């Protein structure tokens, strides 16, 4: 059964006074309005979230939101797949409609993080690592540092190529009023910012963020009755890779990206050449290269060239992270994958405002852990 997206919303990302309850309900309510769907019509409600218990001491948030939005007695479920919880929520929502279990499914993702210190937040996120990694004080940024060093040394890529990803995504974020940062940065600033995990510096990393995003899913048949402006989920795939990062055969290959994108392409009957725009999980600048290679847009060890020659800029051959990406839009863990879906939906229905590019086919790749789990989604504009 064809699955359509008929509505989307996103709160302002950044440092918010609101707690997760308010963020969720704000995005959820706006999505109901955007889709023109009454709360009573929602049959399934999915809430993507990694760690509301650890961050805020608030659990059971799917029931909290179901009641706050008045969607009772809809089936509700919290989806946790670490940083790819949002993508996993898209997968759940797609399954719920594709299977016939629900005709109207609301997905809301959220995380509230900024009330913790950077050290505390880093520790909550690092707790996803294997105990034998965790005890060494490994963090996700330090995995990124080790991978970036290996990539630069092995493929003879210039350090500047990583900074170009940061500069590009900050540039794109200027046009996104919901982004945490709407500020351009210079190459000099990126290259001279403080070292966080050598060779990566402050501007190679996304910030700690509060925020929420939502999408409304229904059948293609019902979508046609409701609106002319909808997108179709034509391909989706999910996969895991080794939990222990150093056990991968090749440190520069994210197997979950390769596998999940192959599944998505096969379902959609498309390939990398068919993409018009993509949102990639640039939690760290190096990840944009690994995903461009993983989804087949670039050969291994060459994605850095696309950053250097501008091919991934908004006016390039394949615009990447028109939203500003996690890098400037922010990365509220459970909301990020949903927000990627919001961006590609808005691009496909022509609602991206100053960020708009010409796009009929779009891809979103949401990465959990350090590539431990990945969801790739392909959406197409309604014919």
């Amino acid at each position, binding site marked *: 059964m064809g699955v359509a997206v008929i509505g989307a919303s996103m709160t302002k990302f950044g440092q918010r006074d609101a707690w997760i309850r308010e963020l969720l309900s704000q995005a959820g309510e706006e999505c109901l309005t955007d889709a023109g769907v009454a709360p009573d019509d929602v049959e399934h409600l999915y809430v993507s979230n990694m760690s509301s218990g650890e961050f805020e001491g608030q659990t059971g948030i799917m029931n909290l939101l179901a009641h706050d939005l008045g969607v009772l007695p809809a089936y509700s479920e919290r989806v946790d797949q670490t940083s790819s919880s949002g993508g996993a929520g898209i997968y759940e929502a797609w399954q719920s409609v594709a299977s016939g279990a629900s005709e109207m499914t609301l997905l809301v993702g959220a995380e509230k993080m900024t009330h913790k210190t950077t*050290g505390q937040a880093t520790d909550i996120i690092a707790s996803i690592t294997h105990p034998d990694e965790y005890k060494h004080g490994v963090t996700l940024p330090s995995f990124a540092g080790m991978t970036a060093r290996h990539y630069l040394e092995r493929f003879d890529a210039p350090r500047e190529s990583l900074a170009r990803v940061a500069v590009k995504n900050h540039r794109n974020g200027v046009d996104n009023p919901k982004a945490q940062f709407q500020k351009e940065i210079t190459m000099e600033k990126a290259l001279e910012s403080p070292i*966080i995990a050598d060779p990566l510096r402050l501007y190679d990393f996304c910030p700690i963020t509060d925020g929420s995003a939502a999408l409304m899913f229904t059948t293609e048949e019902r979508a046609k009755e409701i609106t002319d402006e909808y997108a179709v989920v034509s391909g989706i795939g999910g996969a895991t890779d080794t939990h222990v990062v150093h056990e991968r055969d090749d440190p520069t290959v994210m197997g979950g990206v390769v596998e999940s994108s192959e599944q998505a392409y096969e379902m959609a009957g498309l390939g990398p050449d068919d993409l018009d725009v993509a949102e990639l999980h640039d939690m760290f600048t190096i990840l944009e290269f690994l995903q461009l290679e993983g989804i087949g847009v670039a050969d291994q060890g060459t994605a850095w060239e696309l950053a250097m020659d501008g091919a991934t800029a908004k006016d390039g051959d394949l615009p990447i992270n028109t939203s500003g990406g996690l890098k400037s839009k922010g990365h509220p863990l459970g909301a990020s994958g949903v927000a990627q879906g919001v961006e590609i939906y808005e691009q496909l229905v022509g609602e991206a405002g100053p960020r708009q590019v010409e796009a009929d086919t779009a891809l979103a790749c949401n990465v959990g852990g350090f590539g431990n789990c990945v969801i790739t989604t392909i959406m197409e504009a309604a014919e």
Partner: protein
Amino acid sequence: MTLEAGMCSNGHVSYPTHPLCPECGEPQEETFDLSDRTGEVVTWTHSTATPPGVREPNTLAIVEFDITDVDGASDEFVRALGQVTTDEVETGDTVEPVYVEELRDPDAGIKVPESQDWDGYRWDPV
């Protein structure tokens, strides 16, 4: 304390060990110790933003151990991650494991201290 790698009946080796081989799904019934070997640094980082209870800065490296001499092993090497004893490290350096009783303060992080071991090995360049 050992730096214990696991091996299945097909000779696949991993560090750390897993109940079932990540490569083929057979039980990892054999183990052998890496702590008396030297390894080569594959990559490293100098982390300046560390969580509570972790030394700051924290230099970390992924190290590759040659295991071509291990009876029954079909893999040629196995990798392990760990803290480095010094900030002065480069890719390709040879290191030896040195035992440390507490790699980070178990009482400072998010995990229940009793839920895991906190001792282990750091890499010392030779």
